[in-house]
Structure formats: C-alpha cells, structure tokens
C-alpha cells in the first residue's frame, strides 16, 4: 500500500526532525516543544500500526501531561540558554560522529536481518476494550504495582519540591 509508506515517511521525517531539533536548540523551551512534536508524530505512527488506545494515551499522558510538567518547570526556573563548556565540546567532536556511525551500523544490521517482513497498515487493532480486558485479567499485578508506584512518585515529588520548613520557634 503506497499510502502507508508515504504516511510512514512523512511522520518519520517529522519525528527525526523534532529529535534533531531537540539536540540543536540551545534554549530548553525550544527543546521541550520539539519533543512535544516528536510525541505527536509518534502517536500518528502508532495509529498507522493500529494501536489506537496507545496513540490516544500517548497524546493525553505523554504530550499533554508529562511535557506540560517539563514546560512548567522550565517556566518556573526561568532556565536560560545553556552555555558551552569544554566537556560538551569534546563530547560533540567525538560523540556525534560515533553515535551516527553506531546507529547506521544498527540500522544496516536490522534491515539485512529483518529484510522484507512487512507490517500491514493497522496490523494489530488495539481497541480499548481488549486492552482493558488484558490489563485487568492477565496484567493485573503490574497494573496495581504501577498505581502504587505513581502514589510513591506523587508523595516524593510533593516532599522534594516543597519549601524547607522554618524551625518552630520555641521561645515566644
């Protein structure tokens, strides 16, 4: 299906462009917004694979809540542009070509190993009903454990980010 390939390439290019923009931008707010664009394009890729519930959850949770949290913190701390230090210059010089070479190698291995096995458009429909059934029957224990994890995270975040309390004055 040519349309499938065209859509995949369009959203893939948007993903990669957003990821590269995240690296290139000096100000963290621009990086945060490019990450939101990456997540949106990834949600479209999930839809191409038929995972509709995962795509919706990606937009609601990842792009709509986690990244909002990032944007909040950047706004609150008034983070400015980042400065170039010697450490980051060395990492740029050796690291970027290294990572590019490494990822090209991995991509070549993948393409030669998995070759022509194709995935149809909407190959595995993931309607919320079936996912809900799985979550509450086969994966009930991990589900409950992650809810406890989120509770711990909430408590931790509230404690860590709260202002340090003043010592109660004993003499009055």
């Amino acid at each position, binding site marked *: 299906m040519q349309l*499938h390939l065209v859509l*995949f390439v369009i959203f*893939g290019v948007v*993903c*990669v462009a957003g*990821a*590269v923009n*995240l*690296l290139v931008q000096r100000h*963290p707010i621009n990086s*945060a917004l490019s*990450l939101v664009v*990456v*997540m949106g394009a990834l949600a479209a*890729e*999930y839809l191409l694979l038929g*995972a509709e*519930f*995962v795509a919706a959850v990606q937009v609601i949770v*990842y792009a709509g809540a*986690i990244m909002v*949290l*990032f944007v909040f*913190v*950047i706004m609150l*701390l008034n*983070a400015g542009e*980042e400065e*170039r*230090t010697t450490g*980051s210059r060395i990492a740029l010089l050796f*690291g970027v070509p290294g990572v*590019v070479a*490494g*990822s090209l190698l*991995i*991509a070549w291995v*993948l393409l030669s190993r*998995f*070759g022509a*096995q*194709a*995935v*149809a*458009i909407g*190959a*595995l429909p*993931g309607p919320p009903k079936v996912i809900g059934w799985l979550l509450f029957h*086969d*994966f009930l224990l*991990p589900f409950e454990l*992650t809810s406890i*994890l*989120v509770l711990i*995270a*909430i408590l*931790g*975040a509230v*404690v860590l*980010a709260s202002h340090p309390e003043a010592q109660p004055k004993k003499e009055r």
Partner: protein
Amino acid sequence: MVPLSYYLALGGILFACGVTGFLVKRNIITIFMSIELMLNGVNLSFVAFAAQWHALSGQIFVFFVMVVAAAEAAVGLAIIIAVYRTRETLNVDRVNLLKL
C-alpha cells in the same frame, strides 16, 4: 506495506538521538528530555513488534512504560527544582561540589 525494519530503524534513530542528547547537553532539563526521547524510541519498537507478532502484550507494555516515565518525570523534576534551589544553576558542570 511498510517493512518492520523501517519502524525499528526509526525507533533506533530516536534512541540514538536521545543518547546523544544525554551525553552532549549540559542543561539538566534537556538531559532529562533526552531520556524521555529514548523511552519514546523504545515504545515505538514495542508497538511495531506487537503488530508484527500479533501479541497485544506489546501495547500493554507501552502503557506501563508511559506510567513509569510519568512517575520518573515527576520525581526527577522535583529533584531538579531542589538542585536549582541550592546551587542556583541548571548547568550539570556546575554541580560539582563532590569533585576532587
């Protein structure tokens, strides 16, 4: 029909960008965002394999990865705020009091 390897390659490229950002950038928040980018690349691989092998547990695992990423983002950002309050900077190179 898009070959499975294309999806995996896209996920791999996102992961590689995340690793690069984690190693190269000096702002704590940008480093944290590179971690989220890595997680997203991994999620794409999960969903692609789930579609290939008709196993819905791939999509369930993506759900759990997102929940863990949310919890980690909340606590991590709280730590970043605490670090900013004491060290007045968001540059990783300046948080070096324990260095010899």
